[in-house]
Protein backbone atom coordinates (compact mmCIF):
# COMPACT_ATOMS: atom_id res chain seq x y z
CA UNK A 1 0.00 0.00 0.00
CA UNK A 2 2.75 2.42 0.94
CA UNK A 3 4.55 1.34 -2.22
CA UNK A 4 1.53 2.41 -4.25
CA UNK A 5 1.21 5.75 -2.49
CA UNK A 6 4.89 6.20 -3.12
CA UNK A 7 4.19 5.81 -6.84
CA UNK A 8 1.88 8.83 -6.78
CA UNK A 9 4.95 11.01 -6.32
CA UNK A 10 5.89 10.35 -9.93
CA UNK A 11 4.20 12.85 -12.28
CA UNK A 12 3.88 10.33 -15.12
CA UNK A 13 1.88 8.01 -12.84
CA UNK A 14 -0.45 10.85 -11.82
CA UNK A 15 -0.89 11.85 -15.48
CA UNK A 16 -1.71 8.28 -16.37
CA UNK A 17 -4.20 7.98 -13.51
CA UNK A 18 -6.00 11.22 -14.30
CA UNK A 19 -6.16 10.55 -18.03
CA UNK A 20 -7.07 6.91 -17.57
CA UNK A 21 -9.87 7.85 -15.17
CA UNK A 22 -11.28 10.52 -17.49
CA UNK A 23 -11.29 8.13 -20.45
CA UNK A 24 -12.75 5.36 -18.28
CA UNK A 25 -15.70 7.55 -17.29
CA UNK A 26 -16.42 8.76 -20.83
CA UNK A 27 -15.90 5.33 -22.40
CA UNK A 28 -17.99 3.49 -19.81
CA UNK A 29 -20.88 5.97 -20.14
CA UNK A 30 -20.94 5.96 -23.93
CA UNK A 31 -20.22 2.23 -23.87
CA UNK A 32 -23.64 1.70 -22.27
CA UNK A 33 -25.32 3.19 -25.33
CA UNK A 34 -22.93 1.40 -27.67
CA UNK A 35 -23.77 -1.98 -26.14
CA UNK A 36 -27.52 -1.29 -26.05
CA UNK A 37 -27.51 0.00 -29.64
CA UNK A 38 -25.68 -3.16 -30.73
CA UNK A 39 -23.01 -0.87 -32.17
CA UNK A 40 -20.09 -2.67 -30.58
CA UNK A 41 -18.49 -3.49 -33.89
CA UNK A 42 -18.66 0.16 -34.98
CA UNK A 43 -17.00 1.09 -31.67
CA UNK A 44 -14.25 -1.41 -32.40
CA UNK A 45 -13.81 -0.22 -35.99
CA UNK A 46 -13.52 3.53 -35.34
CA UNK A 47 -10.05 3.55 -33.73
CA UNK A 48 -8.80 1.11 -36.36
CA UNK A 49 -10.11 3.32 -39.14
CA UNK A 50 -8.36 6.17 -37.35
CA UNK A 51 -5.06 4.35 -37.84
CA UNK A 52 -5.31 5.03 -41.59
CA UNK A 53 -5.86 8.72 -40.89
CA UNK A 54 -2.88 8.89 -38.57
CA UNK A 55 -0.64 7.07 -41.05
CA UNK A 56 -1.87 9.31 -43.89
CA UNK A 57 -1.14 12.40 -41.80
CA UNK A 58 2.40 11.18 -41.07
CA UNK A 59 2.93 10.62 -44.78
CA UNK A 60 1.70 14.15 -45.54
CA UNK A 61 3.89 15.55 -42.81
CA UNK A 62 1.12 16.77 -40.48
CA UNK A 63 0.42 15.84 -36.88
CA UNK A 64 -1.05 12.29 -36.76
CA UNK A 65 -3.79 13.42 -34.35
CA UNK A 66 -5.40 15.62 -37.04
CA UNK A 67 -5.59 12.75 -39.51
CA UNK A 68 -6.87 10.47 -36.78
CA UNK A 69 -9.55 12.92 -35.72
CA UNK A 70 -10.70 13.78 -39.26
CA UNK A 71 -11.03 10.23 -40.48
CA UNK A 72 -12.76 8.80 -37.36
CA UNK A 73 -15.38 11.56 -37.35
CA UNK A 74 -15.87 11.13 -41.10
CA UNK A 75 -16.25 7.36 -40.66
CA UNK A 76 -18.69 7.88 -37.76
CA UNK A 77 -20.92 10.09 -39.92
CA UNK A 78 -20.77 7.57 -42.77
CA UNK A 79 -21.59 4.59 -40.53
CA UNK A 80 -24.41 6.53 -38.89
CA UNK A 81 -25.93 7.44 -42.23
CA UNK A 82 -25.56 3.99 -43.81
CA UNK A 83 -26.63 1.81 -40.99
CA UNK A 84 -30.22 1.48 -39.96
CA UNK A 85 -30.27 -2.20 -40.71
CA UNK A 86 -28.08 -3.95 -38.17
CA UNK A 87 -26.80 -6.87 -40.27
CA UNK A 88 -26.11 -4.62 -43.20
CA UNK A 89 -24.30 -2.14 -40.97
CA UNK A 90 -21.86 -4.67 -39.52
CA UNK A 91 -20.88 -5.91 -42.96
CA UNK A 92 -20.40 -2.37 -44.27
CA UNK A 93 -18.35 -1.40 -41.22
CA UNK A 94 -16.19 -4.48 -41.68
CA UNK A 95 -15.46 -3.76 -45.33
CA UNK A 96 -14.71 -0.08 -44.66
CA UNK A 97 -12.50 -0.93 -41.67
CA UNK A 98 -10.37 -3.47 -43.51
CA UNK A 99 -9.94 -1.02 -46.40
CA UNK A 100 -8.86 1.68 -43.94
CA UNK A 101 -6.38 -0.66 -42.26
CA UNK A 102 -5.00 -1.60 -45.66
CA UNK A 103 -4.61 2.07 -46.54
CA UNK A 104 -2.86 2.65 -43.24
CA UNK A 105 -0.27 -0.03 -44.00
CA UNK A 106 0.19 1.34 -47.52
CA UNK A 107 0.85 4.83 -46.10
CA UNK A 108 3.37 3.37 -43.67
CA UNK A 109 5.10 1.46 -46.47
CA UNK A 110 5.32 4.64 -48.56
CA UNK A 111 6.68 6.59 -45.60
CA UNK A 112 10.37 5.99 -45.27
CA UNK A 113 10.83 7.75 -41.93
CA UNK A 114 10.38 6.64 -38.35
CA UNK A 115 6.91 5.10 -38.04
CA UNK A 116 6.92 4.54 -34.29
CA UNK A 117 4.43 7.37 -33.71
CA UNK A 118 1.84 5.61 -35.81
CA UNK A 119 2.31 2.22 -34.14
CA UNK A 120 1.94 4.02 -30.85
CA UNK A 121 -1.57 4.89 -31.91
CA UNK A 122 -2.55 1.26 -32.26
CA UNK A 123 -1.01 0.17 -29.00
CA UNK A 124 -0.72 3.39 -27.02
CA UNK A 125 1.25 3.98 -23.90
CA UNK A 126 -0.65 5.22 -20.92
CA UNK A 127 2.49 5.64 -18.83
CA UNK A 128 4.07 8.00 -21.36
CA UNK A 129 1.48 10.77 -21.45
CA UNK A 130 2.53 14.41 -21.44
CA UNK A 131 0.74 16.94 -19.24
CA UNK A 132 -0.56 18.66 -22.36
CA UNK A 133 -2.03 15.42 -23.76
CA UNK A 134 -3.57 14.66 -20.37
CA UNK A 135 -5.31 18.06 -20.30
CA UNK A 136 -6.70 17.67 -23.83
CA UNK A 137 -7.97 14.17 -23.11
CA UNK A 138 -9.67 15.20 -19.86
CA UNK A 139 -11.33 18.14 -21.63
CA UNK A 140 -12.54 15.90 -24.46
CA UNK A 141 -13.88 13.32 -22.00
CA UNK A 142 -15.75 16.03 -20.08
CA UNK A 143 -17.23 17.41 -23.32
CA UNK A 144 -18.36 13.96 -24.43
CA UNK A 145 -20.09 13.37 -21.10
CA UNK A 146 -21.81 16.76 -21.32
CA UNK A 147 -23.03 15.99 -24.85
CA UNK A 148 -24.31 12.58 -23.73
CA UNK A 149 -26.17 14.35 -20.90
CA UNK A 150 -27.89 16.69 -23.36
CA UNK A 151 -28.79 13.84 -25.71
CA UNK A 152 -29.67 11.47 -22.87
CA UNK A 153 -33.45 11.04 -23.05
CA UNK A 154 -33.98 11.08 -26.83
CA UNK A 155 -30.87 8.94 -27.33
CA UNK A 156 -32.18 6.38 -24.88
CA UNK A 157 -35.64 6.50 -26.48
CA UNK A 158 -34.27 6.03 -30.01
CA UNK A 159 -31.86 3.33 -28.83
CA UNK A 160 -34.57 1.11 -27.42
CA UNK A 161 -37.72 2.10 -29.27
CA UNK A 162 -36.81 3.71 -32.61
CA UNK A 163 -40.23 3.08 -34.18
CA UNK A 164 -42.10 5.09 -31.56
CA UNK A 165 -39.33 7.67 -31.12
CA UNK A 166 -39.64 8.54 -34.81
CA UNK A 167 -43.40 9.01 -34.44
CA UNK A 168 -42.85 11.28 -31.43
CA UNK A 169 -40.61 13.54 -33.50
CA UNK A 170 -37.23 12.35 -32.17
CA UNK A 171 -34.56 12.83 -34.90
CA UNK A 172 -33.55 9.15 -34.83
CA UNK A 173 -31.05 9.23 -37.72
CA UNK A 174 -29.44 12.44 -36.53
CA UNK A 175 -29.00 11.00 -33.03
CA UNK A 176 -27.44 7.89 -34.51
CA UNK A 177 -24.85 10.05 -36.30
CA UNK A 178 -24.30 12.32 -33.27
CA UNK A 179 -23.74 9.36 -30.98
CA UNK A 180 -21.15 7.83 -33.30
CA UNK A 181 -19.42 11.22 -33.58
CA UNK A 182 -19.19 11.34 -29.76
CA UNK A 183 -17.77 7.84 -29.90
CA UNK A 184 -15.32 8.95 -32.61
CA UNK A 185 -14.15 11.92 -30.55
CA UNK A 186 -13.58 9.74 -27.49
CA UNK A 187 -11.83 7.17 -29.68
CA UNK A 188 -9.50 9.54 -31.47
CA UNK A 189 -8.40 11.33 -28.33
CA UNK A 190 -8.19 8.31 -26.07
CA UNK A 191 -6.53 6.01 -28.54
CA UNK A 192 -3.29 8.01 -28.55
CA UNK A 193 -2.92 7.79 -24.81
CA UNK A 194 -3.99 4.21 -24.26
CA UNK A 195 -4.16 2.47 -27.63
CA UNK A 196 -7.02 0.86 -29.51
CA UNK A 197 -7.07 -2.30 -27.40
CA UNK A 198 -7.37 -0.62 -24.04
CA UNK A 199 -9.90 1.93 -25.27
CA UNK A 200 -12.13 -0.79 -26.67
CA UNK A 201 -11.81 -2.73 -23.41
CA UNK A 202 -13.10 0.30 -21.51
CA UNK A 203 -15.91 0.88 -24.02
CA UNK A 204 -17.32 -2.63 -24.02
CA UNK A 205 -16.29 -4.37 -20.78
CA UNK A 206 -17.85 -2.25 -18.03
CA UNK A 207 -21.05 -1.58 -20.01
CA UNK A 208 -21.55 -5.24 -20.95
CA UNK A 209 -21.27 -6.23 -17.28
CA UNK A 210 -23.44 -3.35 -16.06
CA UNK A 211 -26.36 -4.07 -18.44
CA UNK A 212 -26.48 -7.59 -17.06
CA UNK A 213 -26.40 -6.49 -13.43
CA UNK A 214 -28.71 -3.46 -13.46
CA UNK A 215 -31.77 -2.70 -15.57
CA UNK A 216 -32.56 0.97 -14.93
CA UNK A 217 -30.52 2.92 -17.53
CA UNK A 218 -29.14 5.63 -15.22
CA UNK A 219 -28.04 3.06 -12.64
CA UNK A 220 -26.56 0.84 -15.32
CA UNK A 221 -24.50 3.80 -16.55
CA UNK A 222 -23.32 4.53 -12.97
CA UNK A 223 -22.32 0.90 -12.43
CA UNK A 224 -20.56 0.89 -15.80
CA UNK A 225 -18.60 4.04 -14.87
CA UNK A 226 -17.71 2.62 -11.46
CA UNK A 227 -16.45 -0.62 -13.03
CA UNK A 228 -14.46 1.32 -15.64
CA UNK A 229 -12.72 3.36 -12.95
CA UNK A 230 -12.09 0.26 -10.86
CA UNK A 231 -10.49 -1.59 -13.79
CA UNK A 232 -8.23 1.34 -14.64
CA UNK A 233 -7.11 1.92 -11.06
CA UNK A 234 -6.58 -1.73 -10.16
CA UNK A 235 -4.98 -2.47 -13.53
CA UNK A 236 -2.49 0.35 -13.13
CA UNK A 237 -1.73 -0.61 -9.56
CA UNK A 238 -0.99 -4.23 -10.54
CA UNK A 239 1.14 -3.17 -13.47
CA UNK A 240 3.04 -0.62 -11.40
CA UNK A 241 3.72 -3.02 -8.55
CA UNK A 242 4.71 -5.90 -10.83
CA UNK A 243 6.77 -3.86 -13.23
CA UNK A 244 6.77 -6.20 -16.25
CA UNK A 245 3.09 -6.93 -17.00
CA UNK A 246 1.67 -4.26 -19.37
CA UNK A 247 -1.18 -2.05 -18.10
CA UNK A 248 -3.37 -3.01 -21.09
CA UNK A 249 -3.17 -6.66 -20.16
CA UNK A 250 -4.11 -5.99 -16.53
CA UNK A 251 -7.14 -3.86 -17.42
CA UNK A 252 -8.36 -6.18 -20.19
CA UNK A 253 -7.99 -9.20 -17.89
CA UNK A 254 -9.90 -7.54 -15.05
CA UNK A 255 -12.69 -6.65 -17.45
CA UNK A 256 -12.84 -10.25 -18.69
CA UNK A 257 -12.60 -11.85 -15.25
CA UNK A 258 -15.52 -9.77 -13.94
CA UNK A 259 -17.64 -10.24 -17.07
CA UNK A 260 -17.28 -14.02 -17.25
CA UNK A 261 -19.13 -15.03 -14.06
CA UNK A 262 -21.73 -12.29 -14.60
CA UNK A 263 -22.38 -13.57 -18.12
CA UNK A 264 -22.62 -17.16 -16.94
CA UNK A 265 -24.60 -16.81 -13.76
CA UNK A 266 -26.59 -13.54 -13.70
CA UNK A 267 -29.96 -13.01 -15.34
CA UNK A 268 -31.16 -16.48 -15.99
CA UNK A 269 -34.33 -14.78 -14.63
CA UNK A 270 -35.79 -14.19 -18.08
CA UNK A 271 -35.04 -17.68 -19.30
CA UNK A 272 -36.41 -19.30 -16.16
CA UNK A 273 -39.64 -17.41 -16.40
CA UNK A 274 -40.11 -18.25 -20.05
CA UNK A 275 -39.39 -21.88 -19.17
CA UNK A 276 -42.17 -21.78 -16.57
CA UNK A 277 -44.68 -20.35 -19.00
CA UNK A 278 -43.98 -23.12 -21.48
CA UNK A 279 -44.33 -25.71 -18.75
CA UNK A 280 -47.72 -24.40 -17.62
CA UNK A 281 -48.77 -24.07 -21.23
CA UNK A 282 -48.11 -27.75 -21.75
CA UNK A 283 -49.98 -28.71 -18.58
CA UNK A 284 -53.02 -26.73 -19.67
Amino acid sequence: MTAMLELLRYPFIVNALVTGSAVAVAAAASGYFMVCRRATFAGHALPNIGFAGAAGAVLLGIEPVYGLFAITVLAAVAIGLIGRDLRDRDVTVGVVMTFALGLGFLFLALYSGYAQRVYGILFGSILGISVQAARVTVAAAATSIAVLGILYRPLLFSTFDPELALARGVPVSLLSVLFLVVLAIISSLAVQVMGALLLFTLLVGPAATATRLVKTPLWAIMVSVALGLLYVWLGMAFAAVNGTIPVSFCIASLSFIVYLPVRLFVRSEGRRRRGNTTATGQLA
Partner: protein
Amino acid sequence: MSAPALMPEPRPRPVICAEGVRVDLGGQTIFADVTFAIEDGELVGILGPNGAGKSTLLKVVLGLVKPVSGRVSVLDQPAGRANARIGYVPQFRAIEAETTLRARDVVRFGLDGNRWGPGWPSRAREKRIDAVLEEVDGRELAKAAMGELSGGERQRLLIAQALLSGPRLLLLDEPLASLDLGREQEIIALIRRVCRSRGVAVLFVTHDVNPLLSDLDRVLYLANGRSAIGPPDEVITREILSDLYGAPVEVVKTGGRVFVVGARI
Protein backbone atom coordinates in the same frame (compact mmCIF):
# COMPACT_ATOMS: atom_id res chain seq x y z
CA MET B 1 -70.45 3.25 -52.59
CA SER B 2 -73.44 4.76 -50.92
CA ALA B 3 -73.18 8.34 -49.77
CA PRO B 4 -73.97 7.81 -46.07
CA ALA B 5 -71.19 5.29 -45.67
CA LEU B 6 -68.60 7.52 -47.29
CA MET B 7 -69.56 10.88 -45.85
CA PRO B 8 -70.51 10.89 -42.17
CA GLU B 9 -72.75 13.83 -41.32
CA PRO B 10 -70.44 16.81 -40.66
CA ARG B 11 -69.89 17.55 -36.97
CA PRO B 12 -67.67 20.25 -35.49
CA ARG B 13 -63.89 19.67 -35.37
CA PRO B 14 -63.21 16.04 -36.18
CA VAL B 15 -60.05 14.56 -34.66
CA ILE B 16 -58.86 13.32 -38.06
CA CYS B 17 -60.03 14.61 -41.39
CA ALA B 18 -58.71 12.84 -44.52
CA GLU B 19 -59.83 13.85 -48.00
CA GLY B 20 -58.95 12.10 -51.25
CA VAL B 21 -55.69 10.75 -49.89
CA ARG B 22 -53.39 9.07 -52.41
CA VAL B 23 -50.23 7.32 -51.22
CA ASP B 24 -47.54 5.65 -53.34
CA LEU B 25 -44.82 3.54 -51.74
CA GLY B 26 -41.97 1.98 -53.71
CA GLY B 27 -43.68 2.71 -57.02
CA GLN B 28 -46.91 1.05 -55.91
CA THR B 29 -50.15 2.84 -55.19
CA ILE B 30 -51.31 1.94 -51.70
CA PHE B 31 -54.28 4.33 -51.59
CA ALA B 32 -55.87 5.92 -54.61
CA ASP B 33 -58.65 7.78 -52.86
CA VAL B 34 -59.20 7.49 -49.12
CA THR B 35 -61.64 9.82 -47.40
CA PHE B 36 -62.86 9.70 -43.81
CA ALA B 37 -63.33 11.71 -40.63
CA ILE B 38 -62.89 10.49 -37.05
CA GLU B 39 -64.83 12.16 -34.24
CA ASP B 40 -63.80 12.81 -30.67
CA GLY B 41 -64.02 9.78 -28.40
CA GLU B 42 -65.11 7.16 -30.92
CA LEU B 43 -63.72 3.66 -31.23
CA VAL B 44 -63.02 2.87 -34.88
CA GLY B 45 -61.63 -0.37 -36.29
CA ILE B 46 -59.54 -0.30 -39.45
CA LEU B 47 -60.30 -3.40 -41.49
CA GLY B 48 -59.24 -4.73 -44.85
CA PRO B 49 -57.28 -7.48 -46.56
CA ASN B 50 -53.52 -7.93 -46.20
CA GLY B 51 -51.63 -5.22 -48.04
CA ALA B 52 -54.60 -2.85 -48.06
CA GLY B 53 -52.43 -0.30 -46.22
CA LYS B 54 -53.94 -0.44 -42.73
CA SER B 55 -50.64 0.23 -40.96
CA THR B 56 -49.64 2.72 -43.65
CA LEU B 57 -52.80 4.69 -42.92
CA LEU B 58 -51.69 5.13 -39.28
CA LYS B 59 -48.31 6.37 -40.54
CA VAL B 60 -50.09 8.85 -42.81
CA VAL B 61 -52.02 10.15 -39.78
CA LEU B 62 -48.70 10.52 -37.93
CA GLY B 63 -47.14 12.34 -40.89
CA LEU B 64 -44.47 9.62 -41.27
CA VAL B 65 -45.74 8.80 -44.76
CA LYS B 66 -46.59 11.76 -46.98
CA PRO B 67 -49.55 11.51 -49.36
CA VAL B 68 -48.95 12.27 -53.03
CA SER B 69 -52.22 14.13 -53.11
CA GLY B 70 -55.18 14.79 -50.86
CA ARG B 71 -55.31 16.36 -47.43
CA VAL B 72 -54.95 14.97 -43.92
CA SER B 73 -55.50 17.12 -40.87
CA VAL B 74 -55.16 15.83 -37.32
CA LEU B 75 -56.44 17.87 -34.36
CA ASP B 76 -56.83 20.86 -36.69
CA GLN B 77 -53.22 20.72 -37.84
CA PRO B 78 -51.50 19.14 -40.85
CA ALA B 79 -50.53 15.51 -40.16
CA GLY B 80 -47.29 15.24 -38.17
CA ARG B 81 -47.63 18.52 -36.24
CA ALA B 82 -49.82 17.30 -33.39
CA ASN B 83 -48.01 14.03 -32.64
CA ALA B 84 -47.52 14.98 -28.98
CA ARG B 85 -51.30 14.59 -28.60
CA ILE B 86 -51.35 11.20 -30.32
CA GLY B 87 -50.67 7.94 -28.51
CA TYR B 88 -49.23 5.39 -30.92
CA VAL B 89 -48.63 1.69 -30.41
CA PRO B 90 -46.79 0.40 -33.49
CA GLN B 91 -46.64 -3.26 -34.46
CA PHE B 92 -43.42 -5.33 -34.44
CA ARG B 93 -41.16 -3.38 -32.12
CA ALA B 94 -37.62 -4.19 -31.09
CA ILE B 95 -38.47 -3.10 -27.56
CA GLU B 96 -40.85 -6.00 -26.98
CA ALA B 97 -37.93 -8.42 -26.70
CA GLU B 98 -35.83 -6.04 -24.60
CA THR B 99 -34.46 -7.61 -21.44
CA THR B 100 -32.01 -4.90 -20.42
CA LEU B 101 -34.84 -2.51 -19.50
CA ARG B 102 -37.59 -2.73 -16.92
CA ALA B 103 -41.14 -2.26 -18.11
CA ARG B 104 -41.43 0.94 -16.09
CA ASP B 105 -38.51 2.51 -17.99
CA VAL B 106 -40.14 1.56 -21.28
CA VAL B 107 -43.41 3.16 -20.17
CA ARG B 108 -41.50 6.30 -19.14
CA PHE B 109 -40.41 6.90 -22.74
CA GLY B 110 -44.03 7.86 -23.44
CA LEU B 111 -43.81 10.71 -20.93
CA ASP B 112 -40.58 12.53 -21.77
CA GLY B 113 -38.47 10.33 -24.07
CA ASN B 114 -38.50 13.05 -26.72
CA ARG B 115 -37.23 15.86 -24.45
CA TRP B 116 -33.58 16.93 -24.41
CA GLY B 117 -31.46 16.76 -21.30
CA PRO B 118 -30.96 14.07 -18.68
CA GLY B 119 -34.36 14.50 -16.99
CA TRP B 120 -33.76 14.80 -13.27
CA PRO B 121 -35.88 12.54 -11.04
CA SER B 122 -39.23 14.07 -10.19
CA ARG B 123 -41.96 12.80 -7.90
CA ALA B 124 -44.70 14.32 -10.06
CA ARG B 125 -43.51 12.37 -13.11
CA GLU B 126 -43.29 9.12 -11.16
CA LYS B 127 -46.85 9.68 -9.92
CA ARG B 128 -48.10 10.08 -13.48
CA ILE B 129 -46.39 6.82 -14.41
CA ASP B 130 -47.95 5.08 -11.40
CA ALA B 131 -51.39 6.41 -12.34
CA VAL B 132 -51.19 5.20 -15.92
CA LEU B 133 -49.86 1.79 -14.82
CA GLU B 134 -52.83 1.57 -12.46
CA GLU B 135 -55.16 2.41 -15.34
CA VAL B 136 -53.98 -0.64 -17.32
CA ASP B 137 -53.66 -2.91 -14.23
CA GLY B 138 -49.92 -3.00 -14.78
CA ARG B 139 -48.53 -2.00 -11.38
CA GLU B 140 -47.22 -5.47 -10.64
CA LEU B 141 -45.55 -5.73 -14.09
CA ALA B 142 -43.50 -2.55 -13.73
CA LYS B 143 -40.39 -4.21 -12.34
CA ALA B 144 -40.15 -7.06 -14.85
CA ALA B 145 -38.00 -6.81 -17.95
CA MET B 146 -40.06 -6.26 -21.10
CA GLY B 147 -38.80 -9.47 -22.75
CA GLU B 148 -39.95 -11.59 -19.79
CA LEU B 149 -43.61 -10.61 -20.12
CA SER B 150 -46.35 -12.30 -22.10
CA GLY B 151 -47.82 -10.70 -25.23
CA GLY B 152 -50.92 -9.46 -23.38
CA GLU B 153 -48.89 -7.98 -20.52
CA ARG B 154 -46.60 -6.20 -22.97
CA GLN B 155 -49.58 -4.84 -24.88
CA ARG B 156 -51.07 -3.40 -21.66
CA LEU B 157 -47.78 -1.65 -20.85
CA LEU B 158 -47.40 -0.29 -24.37
CA ILE B 159 -50.92 1.14 -24.14
CA ALA B 160 -49.94 2.73 -20.81
CA GLN B 161 -46.90 4.21 -22.54
CA ALA B 162 -49.11 5.66 -25.28
CA LEU B 163 -51.49 7.17 -22.67
CA LEU B 164 -48.77 9.04 -20.77
CA SER B 165 -48.79 12.08 -23.01
CA GLY B 166 -52.52 12.54 -22.38
CA PRO B 167 -53.48 11.92 -26.01
CA ARG B 168 -56.73 12.86 -27.72
CA LEU B 169 -56.17 10.19 -30.32
CA LEU B 170 -54.89 6.66 -29.86
CA LEU B 171 -53.51 4.69 -32.84
CA LEU B 172 -53.19 0.96 -32.20
CA ASP B 173 -51.58 -1.27 -34.82
CA GLU B 174 -52.77 -4.88 -34.47
CA PRO B 175 -52.88 -4.89 -30.67
CA LEU B 176 -54.56 -8.30 -30.78
CA ALA B 177 -51.95 -10.00 -32.97
CA SER B 178 -50.59 -13.18 -31.40
CA LEU B 179 -52.86 -13.06 -28.35
CA ASP B 180 -54.98 -16.01 -27.25
CA LEU B 181 -58.75 -15.57 -26.86
CA GLY B 182 -58.75 -14.71 -23.16
CA ARG B 183 -56.00 -12.09 -23.54
CA GLU B 184 -57.74 -10.72 -26.62
CA GLN B 185 -60.88 -9.99 -24.60
CA GLU B 186 -58.78 -8.41 -21.82
CA ILE B 187 -57.10 -6.00 -24.23
CA ILE B 188 -60.38 -5.15 -25.96
CA ALA B 189 -62.01 -4.42 -22.59
CA LEU B 190 -59.04 -2.23 -21.64
CA ILE B 191 -59.18 -0.28 -24.92
CA ARG B 192 -62.94 0.24 -24.61
CA ARG B 193 -62.57 1.39 -21.00
CA VAL B 194 -59.79 3.84 -21.89
CA CYS B 195 -61.75 5.15 -24.87
CA ARG B 196 -64.91 5.77 -22.80
CA SER B 197 -63.32 7.08 -19.58
CA ARG B 198 -60.83 9.41 -21.27
CA GLY B 199 -63.02 10.33 -24.21
CA VAL B 200 -60.06 9.64 -26.46
CA ALA B 201 -60.65 8.69 -30.10
CA VAL B 202 -59.20 5.26 -30.91
CA LEU B 203 -58.16 4.00 -34.34
CA PHE B 204 -57.53 0.31 -34.11
CA VAL B 205 -56.01 -1.84 -36.88
CA THR B 206 -57.19 -5.43 -36.82
CA HIS B 207 -57.19 -8.35 -39.22
CA ASP B 208 -60.30 -9.89 -37.66
CA VAL B 209 -63.27 -7.75 -36.71
CA ASN B 210 -65.18 -10.49 -34.89
CA PRO B 211 -63.66 -10.26 -31.40
CA LEU B 212 -64.65 -6.60 -31.15
CA LEU B 213 -67.64 -6.31 -33.44
CA SER B 214 -69.97 -5.24 -30.62
CA ASP B 215 -67.49 -2.72 -29.22
CA LEU B 216 -66.76 -0.67 -32.33
CA ASP B 217 -68.60 2.56 -33.01
CA ARG B 218 -67.62 2.48 -36.65
CA VAL B 219 -65.35 0.62 -39.03
CA LEU B 220 -63.04 2.08 -41.65
CA TYR B 221 -62.79 -0.52 -44.38
CA LEU B 222 -59.80 -0.29 -46.74
CA ALA B 223 -59.63 -2.26 -49.96
CA ASN B 224 -58.48 -1.74 -53.50
CA GLY B 225 -56.96 1.65 -52.63
CA ARG B 226 -60.25 3.08 -51.46
CA SER B 227 -62.18 3.32 -48.20
CA ALA B 228 -65.64 3.14 -46.68
CA ILE B 229 -66.57 4.23 -43.17
CA GLY B 230 -69.67 3.75 -41.04
CA PRO B 231 -71.26 1.53 -38.39
CA PRO B 232 -70.14 -2.10 -38.81
CA ASP B 233 -73.50 -3.43 -39.99
CA GLU B 234 -73.80 -0.68 -42.60
CA VAL B 235 -70.28 -1.07 -44.03
CA ILE B 236 -69.71 -4.81 -43.84
CA THR B 237 -72.42 -5.56 -46.39
CA ARG B 238 -72.41 -7.23 -49.77
CA GLU B 239 -73.23 -3.97 -51.61
CA ILE B 240 -70.65 -1.70 -49.99
CA LEU B 241 -67.80 -4.21 -50.02
CA SER B 242 -68.48 -5.42 -53.60
CA ASP B 243 -68.36 -1.81 -54.70
CA LEU B 244 -65.15 -1.19 -52.70
CA TYR B 245 -63.35 -4.27 -54.00
CA GLY B 246 -64.72 -3.76 -57.50
CA ALA B 247 -65.57 -7.48 -57.51
CA PRO B 248 -68.38 -9.60 -56.14
CA VAL B 249 -68.07 -10.16 -52.40
CA GLU B 250 -70.34 -12.10 -50.07
CA VAL B 251 -70.83 -11.23 -46.42
CA VAL B 252 -71.82 -14.24 -44.34
CA LYS B 253 -73.26 -13.69 -40.88
CA THR B 254 -73.45 -16.76 -38.71
CA GLY B 255 -73.49 -17.39 -34.99
CA GLY B 256 -72.96 -13.71 -34.18
CA ARG B 257 -69.85 -13.64 -36.35
CA VAL B 258 -69.34 -12.06 -39.72
CA PHE B 259 -67.17 -13.32 -42.58
CA VAL B 260 -66.24 -11.62 -45.81
CA VAL B 261 -65.87 -14.08 -48.68
CA GLY B 262 -64.93 -13.40 -52.28
CA ALA B 263 -62.89 -14.68 -55.17
CA ARG B 264 -60.15 -12.04 -54.84
CA ILE B 265 -59.90 -11.64 -51.09
